[in-house]
């Protein structure tokens, strides 16, 4: 079985955690062994905090801090949990949820033995609903600033106000940026409630990944 190792990076609030959690669960549903790593060292476990136990119960291995194991959250700086540094030595698939922005993407530098894991793919999550990545030129500039990227995820949405046309518009704008960047679109994500209206592919033929909302139960 080909091992899957994917790191999700991108703009603040672009949907990295939501995409990463769903990806990890999708793989788990295929009876694969999956480890999900919270590598956000700016706001660690804010996002996963209320979800960690539930996700573990489902069978995911989660590498993330428990709040009570740390002190001075948000004030005293954060340290990476040693087991995160060696996450790529884990058996099975590894999904890395990386901190936001350019600085966040550098967190990947802290992960050991990337060269021994050529299957590692780094995907930038993009939403044209985010003001800073709403237009093609901005997306190109932004993705270039992130460092190594192997593919783009069209995660365009407007929360509860999302419609299919907005997602397809995202596919077109991000698709055009991807072409100029010489990168593939790995998937277009959509809320599962809109699944019937789209089918298995977006308007450009990219595969659809259904998203179940977990992050709306998180605090931050």
């Amino acid at each position, binding site marked *: 079985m080909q091992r899957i190792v994917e790191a999700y990076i991108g703009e*603040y*609030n672009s949907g990295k955690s939501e995409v990463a959690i769903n990806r990890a669960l999708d793989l788990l549903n295929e009876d694969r062994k999956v480890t999900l790593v919270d590598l956000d060292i700016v706001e660690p476990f*804010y996002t996963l905090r209320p979800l960690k136990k539930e996700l573990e119960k489902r069978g995911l291995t989660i590498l993330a801090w428990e709040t009570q194991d740390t002190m001075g*959250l*948000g*004030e005293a700086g954060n340290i990476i949990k040693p087991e995160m540094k060696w996450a790529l030595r884990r058996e099975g698939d590894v999904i890395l949820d990386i901190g936001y922005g350019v600085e966040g993407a550098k967190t990947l530098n802290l992960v050991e033995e990337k060269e021994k894991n050529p299957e590692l793919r780094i995907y930038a999550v993009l*939403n044209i*609903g*985010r*003001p*800073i990545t*709403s237009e093609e030129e901005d997306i190109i500039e932004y993705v270039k600033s992130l460092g190594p990227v192997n593919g783009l995820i069209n995660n365009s*949405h*407007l*929360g*509860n*106000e999302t419609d299919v046309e907005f997602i397809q518009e995202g596919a077109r704008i991000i698709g055009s940026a991807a072409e100029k960047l010489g990168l593939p679109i790995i998937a277009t994500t959509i809320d599962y409630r809109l699944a019937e209206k789209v089918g298995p592919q977006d308007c450009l033929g990219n595969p659809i990944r259904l998203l179940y909302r977990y992050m709306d139960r998180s*605090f*931050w």
Partner: protein
Amino acid sequence: MADKPIKGEKRFFVTGNEVVAWAALAADVDIMYGYPITPQNEIMHYWTRLAPKYGRKFLQTEDEISAGFTTCGGVFSGARAFTATAGPGNTLMQEPMSMAEMMRIPAVFVITQRGGPSTATVIYSQQEVTLTCFGGNGEGMRIVYSPGSHQDLYDYTIKAFNTAWKYRFPTFVLGDGYQAKMRESVIMYDPEERGVQMEPTEKIVGKEGMPGVDREPAHLRNTYNTEEELNVVVNELVDAFWKAAPEIVEHQEFNCEDADIVIVAHGVVTRAAQAAVKELRDQGKKVGHFRPITLRPYPIEAMKKAIAQAKEIILVESAEGQLDKLVKAELYGSKVPITPYFRPGMGITSEEIVEFINKKG
């Protein structure tokens, strides 16, 4: 001249902090002064990312005292200026905020409340109500808006600059850490295209012409020699504040007309209160909700009308009675009993409010 940051109207998916940064851009703000503190940091992060693109400025100062004073200084020079802070930073900034009251400086302060007292949590509370409305060694001559959604954050951030420059009192947008980090969609617009004219700014010091010859001298004072001198000045401040108050106060009401129980809540908690009213009405209970949008000045006349029929007020807040204190001071003499639901430093859900009211019977 750089392009307008927002042209027409467009819906975006954003955090509250970003909303504030974009609203300030749309409001034609010239400069932000700031010192980092969670949970307001992304206001600065986004402002500093966006400002150069639109020809705006930013100054990072050495602490919050300085951030507050430099904001006042920027305003003196005629700039539309603001700063943002939270918690202990709000505490430190009280001195410049007091000066802004005394000198009628139209500075705008965005507060994202975090847990208290002291450093506490970086996350959320409604424990900066008293500090924001009445902090400093003065009379609380401040205008304080309490937004409850991202759309509010956008609308009232823009409005805060107009209110400040129109009435010349320091003006606050009192958000919180939940709103700062929460993600939801918002319609951003160019105020002008909605018919909202930005109140013009002007130099407060260094005006054209010879002082005393071509114009009145601009003599800004925060120090006086005697009690009598000070008393005259404070009386003038107080008079000006209460004269403007009826034009400034804002509130929202939900099903108050026939309500036996009125839930009073502000800020992000209004969302839980609104949902609770819906749920309880579906259960056949006569429950309404009064939401002060301005905490200072407080919309007391509207509130008196809203509770005229009520048998009980339930005061819901993420603090140990700070809104409660405001309400009681304003409602002195009212016979309607007030039942507290205080959760200092904790979020409050609609389910919890519904359960609380149902348990009371």
